[in-house]
């Protein structure tokens, strides 16, 4: 058995006395450090969740503004669309408040997962609304260009009376009419297709059908846009043929998306 001198024993005793509180302190700080790490993890998860929710709400608010100034759609369609968007905004606001106030890690995990699940609805609603608003503007433009086309027709008739050969201008006017008609039909088609969307709820068949419908509607909007650009070229050709002075065009109005002056779209 090892024996120590009295001084040595005292020294061990002092070291022991010093170590005990140190070890005790170390043991005491293990739990707060773990808790702090868990808290940091929750904070990070909440930040990511807030970021995604804020992003979606910002987009939905833009959509709401744009839907509000749609000019051509039927009132009930517009009301239903606006209601669906505002419902999503309210749901996200409630979810965000719940997540921000959450203190239970298990519940927080579930709530964060619900953001991913809610994306399926969001990912259908926003394109549907965007397609509807774009189609609405297409129809507005066809109305505007039809009015302008009537004026050009009157000017062409006057030119004919004055002895001008209007055969080329009449042909271009006919093309303008056809393009406007097709643009209107494409807009109608886009909206009709987009309203057929249904929440997939994880059903892959429905997901595929929705994706195909959105693609079809997107294509229709694109075709309508091209029709209108071609129509605008026809108008320019006729204006040139009639030697119309466009001095007023220098004061081209600007349109702010979502403003009352920005407008238009589709009847169904």
């Amino acid at each position, binding site marked *: 058995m090892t024996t120590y001198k009295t001084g040595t024993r005292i020294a061990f005793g002092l070291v022991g006395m010093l170590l005990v509180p140190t070890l005790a302190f170390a043991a005491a700080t293990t739990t707060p450090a773990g808790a702090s790490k868990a808290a940091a993890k929750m904070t990070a998860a909440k930040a990511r969740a807030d970021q995604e929710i804020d992003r979606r709400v910002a987009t939905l608010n833009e959509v709401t503004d744009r839907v509000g100034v749609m000019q051509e759609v039927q009132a009930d369609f517009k009301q239903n669309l606006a209601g669906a968007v505002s419902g999503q905004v309210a749901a996200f606001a409630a979810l965000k408040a719940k997540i921000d106030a959450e203190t239970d890690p298990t519940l927080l995990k579930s709530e964060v997962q619900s953001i991913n699940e809610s994306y399926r609805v969001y990912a259908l609603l926003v394109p549907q609304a965007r397609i509807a608003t774009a189609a609405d*503007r297409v129809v507005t433009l066809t109305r505007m260009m039809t009015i302008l086309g009537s004026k050009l027709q009157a000017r062409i008739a006057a030119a004919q009376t004055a002895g001008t050969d209007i055969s080329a201008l009449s042909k271009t006017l006919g093309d303008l009419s056809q393009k406007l008609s097709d643009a209107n039909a494409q807009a109608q088609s886009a909206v009709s297709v987009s309203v057929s969307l249904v929440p997939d709820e994880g059903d892959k068949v429905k997901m595929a059908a929705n994706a195909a419908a959105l693609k079809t509607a997107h294509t229709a909007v694109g075709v309508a846009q091209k029709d209108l650009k071609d129509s605008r070229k026809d108008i320019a050709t006729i204006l040139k043929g009639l030697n*119309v002075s466009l001095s007023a*065009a220098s004061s*081209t109005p600007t349109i702010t998306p979502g403003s009352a002056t920005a*407008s238009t779209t589709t009847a169904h």
Partner: protein
Amino acid sequence: MPAVLKWVLVLVVLVGVGWLLWWSGWFKSASYSASTQGNAAGAVAATTTQAASAAPAPLNGMSVASDSSDPAIGQDTAAVDAQMQALDADGSQVTASLNDKPVAQSY
């Protein structure tokens, strides 16, 4: 004949005449005529209102539909161009919405 009996007879005759008129539809015609006049006035008012609202209001910065002068056509063209620019933005938003990706969530 007592005076009272005379008044009773007059009253009976008046009631009888009134009933005959009602039965023959004269009162109905009179009341229909009055209500028709009221409706006609309403119809005129409604027509006036419709006529006022039917006047083609300039659409999105366009000029009056009946004006085909150079300045009016210039104004219309400018209004169309503004909407065309906005349509480009709408088309881009449709594309962006279809390509949207969520911020990854994990916990």
